[in-house]
């Protein structure tokens, strides 16, 4: 009985032990497979990551496809992996054989892929368009392996099918969803990377292109063989082409042949990796600064990709420089001549017998006086211009009676006007309050300048019209003038004459020959004025009067201007704001 009990207990224990053993075994197994699965996942991830890094910033899809097919055996067991890519020239077919297969096997894969590609793109691709490469194991002619299992994964970049991957095996039923998922994941990742890169590149290219297009500098770029790669609108304009015209490098050789030998300069730059700088090149009567530089590869700085030529138009600064030089030499001349004359006169007078009578003495002294007076006036004007330019010109605004000031000037000039049978017409707006703040000395000089100029230019038997009125904020200056019957030459069509603040407007109009538009813009330029004045028949004053007048008016925060109609006459005007900021 005890035995039985003992056996029973032992059996029970055994059963329990067995149970636990089995339980434990099962548990161990589960853990093991989970662990394996995790390891697989970690491995997959690390390979994917490595793949990502190797694909890196490459835009070469063929290279990427090589990397993918070269790494795939780490995940999947197969006889062959292959890709087929669309290139502009042909269809690239490359197959990696993991084990030796028959020619028939390769043909089979190739046909299936071509079929799949045709279906994906809804186009018929022929076998003779395919460029084939086989790597890996050998193709054995005597074997008769067949494709017994396979799957395709299309390679899609930016929603465009660019090719297809195929994995094939001689064993049937070899591939499951797992394998397909892996390849799908890999191609997806590669495709995303390429798409992103393509976006960046396209974006940069667009930015670069629009920048080069809109540059005011002329830019042309060639490759190492001087094939034209880029010619922006500005550079086309320089050689006299329209922006949409197609140009070749030969157009540049031809059109620039009298200005610079662009061919040898470019060749020199590319060959010697040297930047050429030409400070002054004249092309069609314009001045350019020209840079010729090799284009270096950003990766390998030793590698030259081509040459670039940049043309910068410096005609304006050239003209300004010439104006300055002319001005200086004119100035020196204008000061030296009277000084030399006075000196020689003094020496002459010292000589015995040169001054015989008191009339002689009077004449010589008079000449010296006039010469030095003119010179002093020029020096004074120049000093004033210098003061204006340096912003040190100060006005002393006090309450003044505009009407009285203008009337006094008219009275002063009336005898001179009568000599030419001119009369003054004075239009005075009664709204003007008796006293307005301004610098009486300064405004007197502006008026003198305007009136003496008008006298110089108006025709015989014509009026000189002087008008003074108040401009109201928001009103049209032309209409305000019309109401007062002013016959001036301000442009009627433009709306620009709405001057913002309330101000006094004074306009002096002559009925002479008018001024050419190209001269008008230079009237207030000191460089041109001094020179222009010397060439006029009268050579009165220094020609700097308008330059100074502008300075005076602007010191009052006013506006000075001129409008003219050829053969009809000219209006000079200025404004003085009613509230002068001090």
């Amino acid at each position, binding site marked *: 009985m005890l035995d039985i009990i003992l056996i029973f207990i032992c059996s029970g224990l055994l059963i329990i032990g067995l149970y636990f053993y089995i339980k434990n075994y099962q548990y161990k197994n589960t853990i093991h497979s989970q662990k394996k699965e995790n390891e697989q996942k970690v491995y997959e991830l690390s390979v994917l990551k490595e793949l990502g890094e190797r694909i890196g910033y490459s835009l070469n899809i063929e290279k990427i496809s090589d990397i993918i097919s070269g790494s795939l055996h780490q995940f999947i067991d197969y006889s062959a992996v292959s890709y087929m890519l669309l290139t502009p020239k042909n269809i690239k077919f490359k197959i990696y054989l993991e084990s030796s297969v028959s020619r028939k096997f390769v043909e089979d894969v190739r046909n299936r892929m071509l079929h799949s590609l045709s279906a994906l793109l809804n186009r018929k691709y022929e076998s003779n368009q395919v460029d084939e490469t086989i790597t890996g194991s050998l193709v054995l002619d005597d074997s008769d392996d067949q494709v017994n299992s396979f799957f395709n994964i299309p390679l899609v970049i930016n929603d465009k099918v660019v090719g297809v991957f195929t994995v094939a095996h001689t064993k049937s039923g070899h591939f499951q969803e797992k394998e397909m998922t892996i390849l799908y994941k890999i191609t997806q990742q590669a495709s995303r990377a390429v798409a992103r890169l393509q976006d960046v590149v396209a974006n940069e290219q667009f930015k670069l292109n629009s920048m080069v297009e809109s540059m005011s500098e002329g830019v042309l770029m060639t490759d190492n063989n001087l094939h034209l790669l880029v010619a922006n609108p500005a550079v086309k304009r320089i050689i006299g082409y329209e922006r949409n015209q197609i140009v070749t490098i030969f157009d540049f050789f031809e059109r620039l042949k009298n200005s610079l030998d662009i061919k040898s300069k470019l060749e020199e730059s590319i060959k010697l990796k040297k930047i050429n700088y030409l400070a002054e090149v004249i092309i069609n009567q314009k001045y350019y600064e020209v840079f010729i530089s090799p284009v270096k590869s950003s990766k390998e700085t030793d590698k030259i990709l081509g040459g670039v030529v940049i043309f910068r138009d410096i005609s304006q600064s050239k003209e300004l420089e010439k104006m300055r030089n002319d001005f200086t030499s004119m100035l020196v*001349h204008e000061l030296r001549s009277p000084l030399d004359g006075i000196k020689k006169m003094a020496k002459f007078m010292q000589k015995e017998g040169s001054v015989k009578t008191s009339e002689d003495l009077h004449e*010589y002294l008079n000449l010296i006086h006039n010469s030095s007076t003119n010179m002093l006036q020029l020096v004074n004007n120049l000093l004033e211009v210098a003061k204006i330019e340096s912003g040190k010109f100060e006005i002393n605004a006090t309450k003044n009676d505009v009407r009285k000031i203008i009337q006094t000037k008219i009275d002063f000039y009336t005898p001179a006007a009568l000599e030419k049978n001119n009369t003054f017409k004075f239009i005075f707006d009664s709204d003007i309050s008796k006293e307005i703040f301004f610098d009486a000395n300064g405004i007197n000089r502006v008026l003198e300048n305007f009136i003496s100029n008008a006298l110089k230019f108006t025709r015989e038997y014509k009026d000189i019209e002087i008008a003074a009125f108040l401009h109201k904020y928001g009103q049209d200056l032309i209409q305000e003038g019309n109401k007062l019957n002013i016959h001036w030459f301000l442009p009627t069509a433009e709306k620009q004459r709405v001057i913002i603040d309330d101000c006094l407007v004074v306009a002096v109009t002559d009925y002479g020959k008018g001024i050419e538009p190209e001269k008008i813009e230079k009237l207030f330029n000191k460089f041109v004025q001094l020179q222009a004045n010397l060439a006029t028949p009268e050579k009165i004053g220094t020609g700097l009067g308008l330059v100074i007048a502008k300075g005076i008016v602007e010191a009052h925060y006013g506006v000075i201007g001129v409008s003219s109609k050829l053969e009809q006459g000219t209006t000079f005007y200025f404004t003085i704001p009613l509230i002068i900021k001090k």
Partner: protein
Amino acid sequence: MADNQSALGGKTVLLAEDELTTLKVMSSSLKAENINVIEAVDGQQAYDLAIAQHPDLVILDIQMPKLDGLTVLEKLRLDDWGKNAEVMLLTNYNDSEKILLAFRQKAFSYLVKSEYDTETLVKKIKEKLNLS
């Protein structure tokens, strides 16, 4: 403004100068050397008087009202008499561009006034006239 005093002969010089002190001094100094002087105060006057009176020597300032000296020279060279006339530029411009222009038009001398005193200038003019 021709000086008709010395109709007996002697050389005649046309002096074109807008700086009146200089004109007076030069003119008086030349007259003191018994040279006849025709005075002109601007370029137009200088041209008209030269064509009308055919002086032995034309002395031109460059910077003058109406016509500058170089333009007068250019115009003279188009005239039958003027194309071989003796011309001297006497100026205060020291500008190589202008000197070049002057020599292109066969000006025989180019003198910067302020570099010489009156006596030297008169001497140079006399040399030009073969009077020394």
